[in-house]
């Protein structure tokens, strides 16, 4: 009944309007950058482009694809995402299985759990981590980007909570009676049942690896080892070309506004593609994280 009052109707209209404007504001910057990347370079340099490309051309994308520095860092990013996700998921799944047992089934579970949870609460900080990674001789290798972030205690808790709540205990017990050991139960029962959770957390891990840039900046001494995010960070954000050893022509291309926009858009593209898939899961993932014993 109160839904029909005049005041509520006015509120509804304002509310819809406000939310619509807010949502549009969230994506306008992306549309702007896309429009710039698709415009002719003179129109972009003259600041004429708003949300619709002017002098439509794919020139900027041509130059970006033709730039071997960009392509190499793109490839490095792809391999980082694959390697990083495999290593990380492998380690976390193997650890989450034992930790999902009860204290009675697995003595020492508490100690292990706290061992990992403590890493969420306290860390050595930037400089000591940098020194350790350097001392291990990982500089300029992919491992420097993969191993320090391999274990994310929070994701591990999500996984173990999923194991705990969605694998039927009776199934496990039946398998034990049939003589299966822990390895078999982990591989044949837990993993297949947990595919949705594994997919979600893998996607989170992929997004993390695709987006991280800082470790590339500090652990790669040679700019030819930069993954894409780090490459863009130095070229577009810091505008620092000193490490790049590029000739004048490439430099001019790299600093053109349309080309920069194209590079930004290409780097954002995988997220825009993957996003609808994660979106479906992440609300669930968060509720999952909230589920307590």
């Amino acid at each position, binding site marked *: *009944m*109160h839904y029909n*009052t005049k005041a*509520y109707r006015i*509120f509804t209209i304002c509310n*819809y309007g406000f*939310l619509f404007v*807010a*949502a549009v504001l969230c*994506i306008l*910057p992306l549309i*702007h950058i896309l429009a710039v990347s698709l415009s002719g370079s003179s129109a972009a340099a003259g*600041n004429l482009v708003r949300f619709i490309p002017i002098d439509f051309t794919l020139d900027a994308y041509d130059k970006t694809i033709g730039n071997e520095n960009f392509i190499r860092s793109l490839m490095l990013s792809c391999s980082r995402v694959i390697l990083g996700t495999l290593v990380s998921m*492998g380690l*976390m799944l*193997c650890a989450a299985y*034992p*930790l999902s047992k009860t204290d009675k*089934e697995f*003595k*020492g579970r508490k100690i*292990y*759990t706290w*061992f990992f949870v403590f*890493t969420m*609460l*306290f*860390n*050595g*900080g*930037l*400089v*000591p*981590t940098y*020194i*350790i990674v350097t001392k*291990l001789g990982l500089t300029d290798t992919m491992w420097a980007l993969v191993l*320090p972030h*391999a*274990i*994310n205690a929070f994701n591990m*808790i999500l996984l*173990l*909570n999923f194991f705990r709540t969605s694998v039927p205990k009776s199934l496990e017990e039946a398998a034990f009676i049939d003589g299966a050991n*822990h390895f078999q139960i982990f591989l044949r029962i837990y993993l297949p049942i947990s595919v949705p959770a594994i997919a979600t957390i893998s996607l989170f891990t992929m997004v993390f690896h695709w987006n991280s840039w800082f470790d590339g900046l*500090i652990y790669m001494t040679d700019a030819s080892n930069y993954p894409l*995010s780090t490459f863009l960070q130095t070229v*577009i*954000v810091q505008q620092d070309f000193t490490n790049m050893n590029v000739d004048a022509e490439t430099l001019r291309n790299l600093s053109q506004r349309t080309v*920069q926009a194209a*590079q930004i858009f290409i*780097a954002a593209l995988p*997220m825009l593609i993957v996003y609808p898939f994660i*979106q479906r899961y*992440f*609300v669930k993932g*968060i509720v999952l994280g*909230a589920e*307590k*014993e």
Partner: protein
Amino acid sequence: MALRQPLPQEEQTSSLNDKQSRQFNKKKPVHPKPKKKKQKWNFKRTWQLHVLVLPAVIVALFFQYAPMGGLIMAFQDYKPWLGFLNSPWVGFQHFKTMFEYDDARQVIWNTLVISLLKIIFQVAVPLMFALLLNEVRKMAFKKSIQTIIYLPHFLSWVILGGILMDMLSPDGGLINQMLGFIGIDPIFFLGDNTWFRPTIIISDIWKETGFNTIVFLAAVTAVNPVLYEAAIMDGANRWKQTLYITIPAMLPIIIVVATLSLGNILNAGFDQIFNLYNPLVYQTGDIIDTYVYRVGLINGDFSYGTAVGLFKSVISFILVVIGYRLAYKYADYRIF
């Protein structure tokens, strides 16, 4: 994001009941077991489990715990060629320096101001969004708004930094063009000490509001509909319902989010600041993390950088623990 995922009301109660019933069972076992000789670790049956955790433990030892050991260099005058063992000890010298340096004090102050503002806005704005979204009856509209406002969370600050630098540029960036239409002179948002902090706060709201809304939205939908029905019978309009039912029902979640984010008060957002700042705005924008990076890794002052980092880690640790205690005490929040 990682540490603040509160739980819907219902699950709390059910888990509590679970626990109670388990305790109850413990007291009166239905089938009392015959007393066996207790094997403390029972390796025979669980060695496989130990084997499975082992790789993760090793990796964590190397990359999480070894750096904690490396913190001793905060009390040394660490020289890379001497190593941890032979570098001379200087005690609390670096910490003293930190509190004597004007720029270090400035950095701590900047960190507190920026992150406190972020915390306030990142509780208030998502809460408002959740309440407004809750009033939307058209599901398709609600879903599409949600989908769009979550999106910026998944783009990195490198990408957003690139976009923002382009849009905020004082010579012809989109924002300044818009301001030009209404007769405002171009503003150098990222190079001006009065504008840098508002820019940081607003861009943070822009990026994270959608994502932070999820938690509140889950809490809004978990409110028992019977309460609303009763209120309608009593003649409460929508506004009164929000004021007297929705907001009180959400209070525990608000407390959890707010207390847990206090643990992050010394994290003002390294990625964002690092990608947006420049020497012009060090005065208002330089935070502990960016400072540690500059003095520790760029200037190579390893020990001093570590000392500042350690100061931050210790305070954060204490605050996180206090935050969890409070959240547990006042809102029954547990992390696992």
